[in-house]
């Protein structure tokens, strides 16, 4: 786990993201229909049905594809110095959190994540803009291992 190589997230995170994508798509489609009905009334809204269908299919397709694209662009590396997280498709960023600056770490798990056996690593630093660095989509056990690894060993004062 603490090698110098880049790691991908757990592949199941793609499945999770797609599932979330389905829910979002379904929710937005329903909201869109309700909006159309409110706007045009029951008698006319179905004129917009093709737009609605296309929009929903487009959204579904995008969320299906996007999960994979995002997965390909996300990686992390844990070594003795700390953790480095690469993320972002268009706006890419590489964030480095030195281990000596970690205040504390959490592993969070929502209901959907639990279903897929995933965990979300949350690293807190004393910083301002990046006081909370998140790494979602890890296998729960991996997240716990990294958390334990990142726990500050020496009682140095990071502030």
């Amino acid at each position: 786990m603490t090698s110098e190589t880049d790691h991908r997230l757990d592949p199941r995170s793609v499945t999770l993201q797609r599932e979330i994508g389905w829910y979002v798509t379904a929710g937005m489609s329903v909201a869109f229909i309700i909006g159309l009905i409110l706007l045009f009334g029951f008698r006319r809204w179905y004129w917009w049905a093709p737009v609605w269908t296309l929009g929903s299919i487009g959204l579904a397709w995008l969320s299906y594809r996007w999960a994979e694209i995002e997965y390909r662009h996300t990686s992390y590396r844990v070594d003795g110095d700390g953790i480095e997280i690469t993320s972002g498709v268009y706006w890419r960023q590489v964030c480095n959190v030195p281990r000596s600056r970690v205040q504390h770490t959490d592993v969070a798990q929502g209901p959907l994540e639990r279903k897929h056996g995933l965990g979300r690593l949350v690293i807190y630093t004393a910083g301002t803009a990046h006081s909370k660095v998140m790494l979602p989509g890890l296998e729960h056990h991996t997240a716990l291992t990294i958390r334990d690894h990142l726990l500050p060993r020496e009682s140095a004062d990071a502030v």
Partner: protein
Amino acid sequence: MPSEHRLHPYSIIFAFLTQIRLFVVPGIFVLVGMTSRNGDWWQPWMMLLIIPNAMVSVLRYVTFRYRYAESEMVIRSGLVFRKERHIPYGRIQNIDAVQNVLHRLLNVVEVKVETGGGGTTEATMSVLPMFAFHEMRTRVFAERQAATPEVANATVAPAPALLQLGTRELLLCGFIDNRGAVVIGAAAGVLWELGLFDRLMPTLFGETVTGRGAVRGLFRAAIGNVTVSLERMLMTIAAIAMLFLVVRILSMGWAAVRLNGFKLLVVGGDARTEYGLLTRVAAAIPLRRVQTLTIRETPLHRVFGRVAVRVDTAGGRVEDGNAKPHRESLAPILRREALPDFVRAVVGPAYDGVAWQAMAPGAFRREVKGWLFSALLMFGGLTFWTRWWAVPVMPLLLAWAILGARYTVKHLGWAINDEALLFKSGWLWRRVVIVRLSKIQTVTLGESPFDRRLAMAGLHVDTAGAAEGSVVHIPYLTRDTAATLYAQVSEEAAHRQFKW
């Protein structure tokens, strides 16, 4: 068990006064508003809420206790919900004391203890007797020095003041900072409340688009639609000039009062500032807690050969925009010649012989787009308002955009040395931020789609308690430079422990 201390009995008075200020000032407006605007009948009764509030403050005084344990300060408070707070001496970022006129008459002081955690002051003790404050300072700082033996050996003998500001400098500071606008803003608020605003504004700005207010008349005259008598034009200009002058003078006076007798000492690794004529403030910041140092230079600063220096510590920042106890700059005004020595005294040799690095060659190309865009927006607005008059202005706007971008890029720069990462920016309003390498929390390398087209990247360095103006975000680096710098800074941040 060490004995417990309590607040000064006068605390009740001060708590009461705070309540009164909270309730009575709006109360007056409510009463005034009732006469003029038919306020609701229940509004004055709201003021009765002061009674439970006042009782709470009495209870707070009665239950508030603090004591000095071996390595921490313990504060207990609360009657129903008991709260016990332990603050290790080593974690205390600074201890501030505020004394307004009444405090000084009664020889008491309001003390604020700040730590790195959270957004707000860790503990506010309002009010303590003066000797208790001195005791707290001695104890906390003595304990801390015991924890770091190198400091104990440092000279604790009274050093000469690092910075002392006379009245002349303070007036200059007020002139440059121009905080008179705050006073004017407050006055405008009062006028608004009293309903005078409605009567004042029409004469000044005109009530509608077709109105005949003085400023509007001037504007129209300048555009050429309407002729305005020369007399009236001059009067308006004079009035505006007067307003600006009054604002400046107010600001100067306010600075002279607020910062009266400003003195900055460095004693045993702590920067101690004292200032204020009416409200006396004494603040102490351990220098090893300084995260970033920011040098500000406005055009007026340059005219007078001065700069302002601020430091950020981890404590005392505010997250959700609540009323922040405004912290003065470490050096509200400083001669340019004294800057290198001053910075050296505060953060060490970080600013000596800085080798500034320029941005990537394509930086101008990136920067100018934003400027051209805003020029275009202005041109659009002008065409809308003045039709053909915008056409001759267009070359001016273009020139401004190109020059602005050029000089902005020219004044961007970064540098790194053994102590710190430095970043300078701004063309007219310049600033230099010095981030100590030992204080860097996270390093982020960012690459936007625009960056990618020109093989560029940006570097963001996060520190604790970074205020708005001291964020380090270096744009327009070549990808290679950014990667090298990123690796170097991450490495330094990971391995560097703070050393004295």
